[in-house]
C-alpha cells in the first residue's frame, strides 16, 4: 500500500484535530465543572501541544521522519507525566483528582491517548512514499493547498495561546499550587482593588 504525501497530510490533519478535541474537552471540564487542572494535568496538556508542534511541521512542509521523531519524544514526555499521576492514585484508598469521564479519570485517558499517539506515529513511519519533496509532488511549501491542514494548525496554535493565558490566570507568574483552589491571578487582582 502506498501512502501519498496528500493522504499523509490529511491523516496528520485528522490527528491534529483529534488532539485539539482532547484539549477542548479538557477546557470543557475545567469551566463547566469548575475543576482546576493540577500542575501534572497542565503538563499533560503541554505534552499534547508539543505533539501538535511535530504534527504542525508535517502539515506545513510535508511529512518527515524528523517530525515524527519529535512527536514520539513529546508523546513519551506526556505519557511519563500521566503515568506518574496514575501511580499517585493506583493504590486503593489514595483518592483521585477530578471527575471520572466514562469511568476513567482525565490522566488515565491522557495516558491512553499518548499510547495511541506513539502507536499511530510509529505506524505512519512505516510508509516511505509520503516523504516526497514538495518539488516532486508539485505542491507549494505550505500546507500543500490542504485547507483542513491549515485549519488544524491554526486551531492548535490558538489552543496553545489560550492555554498559556488560562494557565497564567490560574497559576499567576509563579509556581502552580498543588492542588489549585482558585484562579490565583484573579484573586490577586481582586485583592488589590
Amino acid at each position, binding site marked *: 500500500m502506498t501512502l501519498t504525501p496528500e493522504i499523509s497530510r490529511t491523516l496528520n490533519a485528522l490527528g491534529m484535530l483529534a488532539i485539539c478535541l482532547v484539549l477542548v474537552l479538557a477546557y470543557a471540564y475545567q469551566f463547566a465543572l469548575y475543576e482546576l487542572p493540577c500542575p501534572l494535568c497542565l503538563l499533560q496538556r503541554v505534552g499534547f501541544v508539543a505533539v501538535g508542534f511535530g504534527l504542525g511541521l508535517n502539515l506545513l512542509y510535508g511529512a518527515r521522519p524528523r517530525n515524527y521523531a519529535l512527536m514520539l519524544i513529546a508523546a513519551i514526555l506526556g505519557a511519563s507525566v500521566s503515568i*506518574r499521576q496514575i501511580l499517585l492514585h493506583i493504590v486503593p484508598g489514595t*483518592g483521585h483528582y477530578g471527575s471520572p469521564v466514562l469511568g476513567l479519570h482525565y490522566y488515565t485517558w491522557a495516558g491512553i491517548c499518548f499510547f495511541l499517539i506513539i502507536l499511530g506515529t510509529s505506524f505512519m513511519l512505516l510508509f516511505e512514499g509520503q516523504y516526497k519533496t514538495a518539488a516532486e509532488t508539485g505542491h507549494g511549501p505550505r500546507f500543500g493547498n490542504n485547507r483542513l491542514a491549515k485549519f488544524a494548525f491554526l486551531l492548535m496554535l490558538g489552543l496553545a495561546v489560550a492555554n498559556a493565558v488560562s494557565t497564567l490566570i490560574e*497559576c499567576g507568574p509563579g509556581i502552580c499550587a498543588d492542588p489549585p483552589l482558585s484562579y490565583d491571578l484573579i484573586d490577586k487582582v481582586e485583592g488589590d482593588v
Partner: protein
Amino acid sequence: MIALLFALFALAMGLAWYDRQTPALLVFGATMLMSVYWLKFHATSVLTIQL
C-alpha cells in the same frame, strides 16, 4: 511558569509558520527540557493525598 511552556510552544509554531525552522526547533528543544524540569519539580514535591 507552566504558562510559559505553552507560550514557548506557540512561539515555536509561529516560527515554523514563518519558515524559521531552525529557531523553531531550538525553541521546541529548550521548552521540552524545561518541561522535564517542571515534571521533576512537581513529581518530587510533597504529596497531599486526601485519604
